[in-house]
């Protein structure tokens, strides 16, 4: 399935290109646009600062470009982004813009991608027209160790990515690049890593397979990359890995009760969403006509969850339910224990259903 080239229910796919300041986002963007037919991709650039330098650099695609002038880190950009996307849509309808097939949002280097996705998922108007398609993050092989030790945005950008582009590998030593690659794989085992440099032609993200659609490679990668609480802290100490970045895989007993899972997850996201950088999983949900549970793909970031996808069939032989977490300061043991306590609470009550004893203590005395 190629995410950005097909239209699910006519909604236009929106891709996000992010990466820290100076990591090479615009270089990559120009390369992508040179290789694709004109008028196919609308680009929105979110610039930090008074002068949109990036806007000048990508002048070739000027007709499709709307510059967001309030480039900022927090949720304030939502309104701007919404307006910009809405304007694009209106101009497309009126025929002022070519009928582009996708939108690419390049965020400022100091922004976490959360608000962009929040705008796409949360806004009732935009939801009808656009859908989030992918998040690509450019990582500077040379300066990443410094950035990750100082800037929390860096971690949010890396954790959010479906695909990581390692740039400036020609300036770094092969050892540096390799170490960086290994570290990225550890922080975000969900993402595939692509090396981009002057010599390497990197196909546009929309031509490569897509994150949001069903892919099993991320699951395989995640399972291989997260053998039980493999934390970033151990290996990366000397290189200043961001404290507490941790990726782990939680295996749930199948089939999972959807109601219990949503109660637990909504509560977890509400209270600890700021420390939950990423959540992705394939879960067997108990459903009529599915003896082993219906495969359901879950995808979330921070306080946000995408609409779950109920898949028509299992992608492979493995029918286990797994949730991959990337967290900052949230312990694997805590999350595991929390889920188990919810499960045992409901298991206890389902026993109650058939055998209610008069003297049984009410739940709030427990």
């Amino acid at each position, binding site marked *: 399935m190629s995410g950005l080239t097909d239209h699910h229910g006519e909604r236009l796919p929106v891709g996000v290109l992010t990466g820290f300041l100076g990591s090479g986002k615009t270089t990559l963007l120009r390369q992508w646009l040179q290789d694709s037919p004109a008028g196919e991709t609308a680009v929105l650039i979110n610039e930090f600062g008074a002068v949109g330098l990036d806007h000048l650099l990508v002048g070739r695609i000027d007709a499709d470009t709307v510059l967001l002038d309030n480039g900022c880190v927090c949720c304030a950009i939502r309104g701007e982004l919404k307006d910009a996307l809405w304007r694009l849509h209106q101009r497309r309808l009126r025929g002022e813009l070519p009928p582009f097939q996708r939108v690419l949002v390049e965020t400022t280097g100091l922004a976490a991608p959360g608000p962009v996705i929040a705008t796409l998922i949360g806004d009732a108007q935009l939801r009808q027209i656009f859908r989030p398609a992918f998040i690509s993050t450019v990582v500077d092989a040379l300066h990443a160790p410094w950035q990750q030790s100082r800037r929390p945005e860096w971690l949010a950008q890396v954790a959010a990515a479906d695909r990581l582009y390692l740039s400036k590998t020609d300036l770094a030593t092969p050892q540096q690049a390799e170490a960086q690659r290994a570290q990225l794989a550890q922080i975000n085992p969900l993402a595939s890593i692509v090396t981009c440099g002057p010599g390497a032609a990197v196909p546009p993200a929309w031509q490569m397979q897509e994150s949001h659609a069903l892919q099993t490679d991320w699951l395989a990668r995640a399972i291989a990359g997260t053998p039980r609480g493999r934390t970033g802290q151990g290996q990366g100490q000397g290189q200043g890995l961001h404290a507490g970045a941790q990726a782990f895989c939680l295996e749930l007993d199948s089939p999972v009760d959807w109601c219990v899972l949503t109660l637990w997850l909504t509560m977890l996201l509400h*209270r600890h969403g700021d420390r939950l950088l990423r959540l992705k999983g394939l879960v067997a949900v108990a459903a009529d006509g599915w003896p082993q549970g219906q495969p359901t793909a879950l995808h979330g970031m921070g306080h946000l969850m995408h609409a779950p996808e109920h898949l028509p069939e299992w992608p492979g032989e493995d029918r286990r339910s797994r949730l991959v977490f990337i967290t900052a300061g949230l312990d694997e043991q805590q999350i595991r224990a929390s889920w188990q306590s919810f499960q045992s*609470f409901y298991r206890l009550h389902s026993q*109650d259903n058939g055998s209610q004893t008069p003297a049984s203590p009410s739940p709030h005395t427990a």
Partner: protein
Amino acid sequence: MCGMCGLLQASGHWSQAPAGSAGRRQRLIQIARANRLLALWRLRLSDFHGQSYVLAGPTGASVLIADFGALWPAAEQMLGRALDPLAMPWQPAQAQGQAQVRSQGRAPAQEHREQAP
């Protein structure tokens, strides 16, 4: 939008996508499950026109909420404290203990239906 009460349509929150079974039934099951948990804090959730929910507190205060995403902020505001899934007011050991007690002293089967609102 409902013209009488000014309610917007269901918000399309991710938790509302049911697997397989019909939406209405699933909704009532979901409310019943939530109420088991909310009883820990003497809160109660009920359906409102099949589109929203009403969360009622121990003192009779009630608030209209759109979806399960809004449930926890509303519950916290009503109780005046944070609700943390990592520190729930139950002890796993205690819960297991109760389970054993209950399985030993099983009363004759008595149908206990989940209370639909």
